[in-house]
């Protein structure tokens, strides 16, 4: 695994990243380390990019059933620049505000990217969560109906962003579960 040029981050850059993201100094530096270990040799960290496969293989994401969606939401043109990785870590950090997490959670859970979480999206979410081969149709429909009963306020069988936001503000586990602390490799 080749390494990038050992380019130390300038103090002004560190300050700027601290001001623009929710990450602490130590977290930014550890992500910088990881990035340097993974990126192709000969480039500085500001120009190098990582593929989605490399990011999906990080310990933080490799066991996550939604890792392909996470990579798709946070990458640009299917590659990750250093700032993309920082942005992703900022959303998942402990200090991030709820509105930011809810925004990105909505984008991650919207599998067909039509701006709404509909029944098809919900079924795919449930299948990813259960990760088993013998999930009956009844179970899937039951669960999707229950979720829609609880959070679909205007009865159109889809969750718009406002409805999703409303549901996540009531969910007590959301803020605690939507966190990733360790970005090393």
């Amino acid at each position: 695994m080749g390494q990038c040029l050992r380019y130390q981050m300038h103090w002004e850059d560190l300050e700027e990243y601290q001001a623009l993201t929710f990450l602490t100094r130590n977290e930014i530096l550890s992500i910088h380390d990881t990035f340097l270990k993974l990126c192709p040799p000969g480039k500085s960290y500001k120009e190098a990019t990582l593929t989605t496969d490399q990011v999906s293989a990080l310990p933080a994401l490799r066991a996550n059933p939604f890792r392909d969606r996470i990579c798709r939401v946070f990458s640009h043109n299917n590659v990750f620049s250093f700032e993309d990785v920082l942005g992703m870590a900022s959303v998942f950090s402990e200090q991030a505000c709820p509105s930011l997490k809810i925004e990105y959670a909505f984008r991650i859970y919207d599998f067909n990217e039509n701006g709404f979480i509909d029944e098809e999206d919900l079924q795919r979410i449930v299948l990813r969560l259960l990760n088993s081969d013998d999930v009956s149709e009844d179970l899937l429909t039951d669960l999707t109906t229950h979720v829609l009963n609880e959070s679909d306020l205007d009865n159109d069988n889809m969750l718009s962003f406002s409805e999703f936001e409303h549901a996540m503000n009531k969910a007590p586990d959301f803020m605690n579960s939507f966190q990733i602390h360790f970005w090393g490799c």
Partner: protein
Amino acid sequence: MSEASASALPPGRPRRQPFAHPESLSLESDFCSSPVNFLQELPSYRSIARKRTNIPSRDKQSGTLLKPTDSYTSQREGEIAENLNSQSIRKYALNISEKRRLREIQETQMKYLSEWDQWKRYSSKSWTRFLEKAREMTTHLELWREDIRSIGGKFGTGIQSYFSFLRFLVLLNLVIFLIIFMLVLLPKLLTEYKVTNSSFVLIPAKDIDIQCTVYPISSSGLIYFYSYIIDLLSGTGFLEETCLFYGHYTIDGVKFQNFTYDLPLAYLLSTIAYLALSLLWIVKRSVEGFKINLIRSEEHFQSYCNKIFAGWDFCITSQSMADLKHGSLRYELRADLEEERIRQKIAERTSQETIRIYSLRLFLNCIVLAVLAACFYAIYRATIFSQEHMKKEIDKMIFGENLLILYLPSIVITLANFITPVIFARIIHYEDYSPGFEIRLTILRCVFMRLATICVLVFTLGSKITSCDNNSCELCGYNQKLYPCWETQVGQEMYKLMIFDFIIILAGTLFVDFPRKLLGTYCSSWKLMQCWGQQEFAIPDNVLGIVYGQTICWIGAFFSPLLPAIATVKFIIIFYVKEVSLLHTCRPSPRQFRASNSNFFFLLVLLIGLCLAVIPLTISMAHIPSSKACGPFTNSNTTWEVVPKTVSTFPSSLQSLVYGVTSEAFAVPFFMIICLVMFYFIALAGAHKRVVVQLREQLSLESRDKRYLIQKLTEAQRDMRN
């Protein structure tokens, strides 16, 4: 399918409509997506999307965006400036380069503001930055942060919340000890070791029979080695006179240079202070979980949205833990649907069946009460036996017998706490509740059993203390022959309970958990060993154990001021022991507690413990006369009497105010006003609920209209195209 689920809806909710039937729309292939496309064009959708990302208009160069002279751009920039003021840049859902551009815009904009606004903006920014740095510093000081996080990563958030609960109790006990130290111990130690130029004030007792003030010091003569061990384990002998117990503080005041420090009042106030502090801290910690339960309008405790959208712990890094989480989600979701079906079945019971079930439940609850009564009676007898035989000479007994008698109440309590959960678990099968409710009711019964045993012990002691030979203690108000200094003796019982509890937890881990694991690993050929050896971390039992220890500490801190310090050390050791036991002998459970559920449950149990601890304390402070031979309250009838005595030394206006506030003329109108305020808020909440239901119905009607209009529009478009 929709019929069955519709019948499960609470009344008043509109029925779930299937989305626009495909037959009523055209047969063209792109028809299913065009309603969604239409929805994306609607102004409401667009303005929400704009609010979420708030990207400033891209069709102008960054330089020309800012000229305030241009009327159109100045209006837009006004909006942006307002938005930029209200949110910090990090909260925008943009990537870093766009945020950087926003920041540049913001900074260039600042030049056009007045000096005052610029200074205001700058100072608020530096203040927020300072707060963040301070918060970052304090998270480093958090005790055991990395340990707890790694436990959470390996075993799930339910077990992680157990360990954070243990950390909370360590901090609580430390703060309680600090309060007691500052108010009671510090003046005494300062005077005793001559650090400050102060002296003790000892007021001789008046109007009290000389017999009440006799306090025979126990040991003398030949002291055997094992009597030291017994003294250490039971708080008698050399420990009885140390500052560990109430009897050491036989001081009426400490005279400093400028004022006299009223030690009895300080002692009483420290007790009230630590109880109030515990209550406030527990309520503050539980408010988050409770607030969310209040907002919920659904009947059941856990919502499916929470389980599905917030079901996956994103901080899981290992594949094995991920497999376990998948398994636990499968179990949990299936169990919830099963519970829903059972609840529907219950709702459809015939009245004959209902009567049968309710009479069966009544009978079984009577059995539960009988079991509880039997355990309480056993503890009562054991305490009385132990108290009567404790007075025998040490050298007349063999070592083990003496220790057995001293620890008899603790042993009986522990045995009862092993047996009763098994009995309760058997009984509840016949009561035919839904599975989730079964678990909760069993846990509540075990909690009540465990915590009430301490109360029974204390009440037994209380009854023994206030009963003399001729059935009424006229001389001193309490049995001064057997209990010359009864507070110290109650303190000794609490001390014994705490030590025994600690020994049992250590012994349980060393002699049960580790051998089980060893047997499971090395004798894995036997099927029995394999399934018995694989143990899981039982959260309810462990939580009950530490809440039991904390309740003992709360009751005992009045009678033994150093008990919170012992409790702090005990919980610290238990943390490490449990952590090692968890990491080396337990495997993660396939059925996992949820963190939000667990936190609320732990704090609820702790609150029950606090309430049960306050009862014996109030009775002993207000009803039982304080001992006249020892302690700071020799000059007052009961412990509480110190307060009226102090109030009578206030200036007369303040005195009349205090008497006015505590009289019935104030209390009854105050109570009525509080009831009225409560009724008002209940009515308000009911009205809000009705409004919410009406608004929901309106929303679904509006959405139906919207779909109808979209359908008409697409038909019209199709006709135009044809």
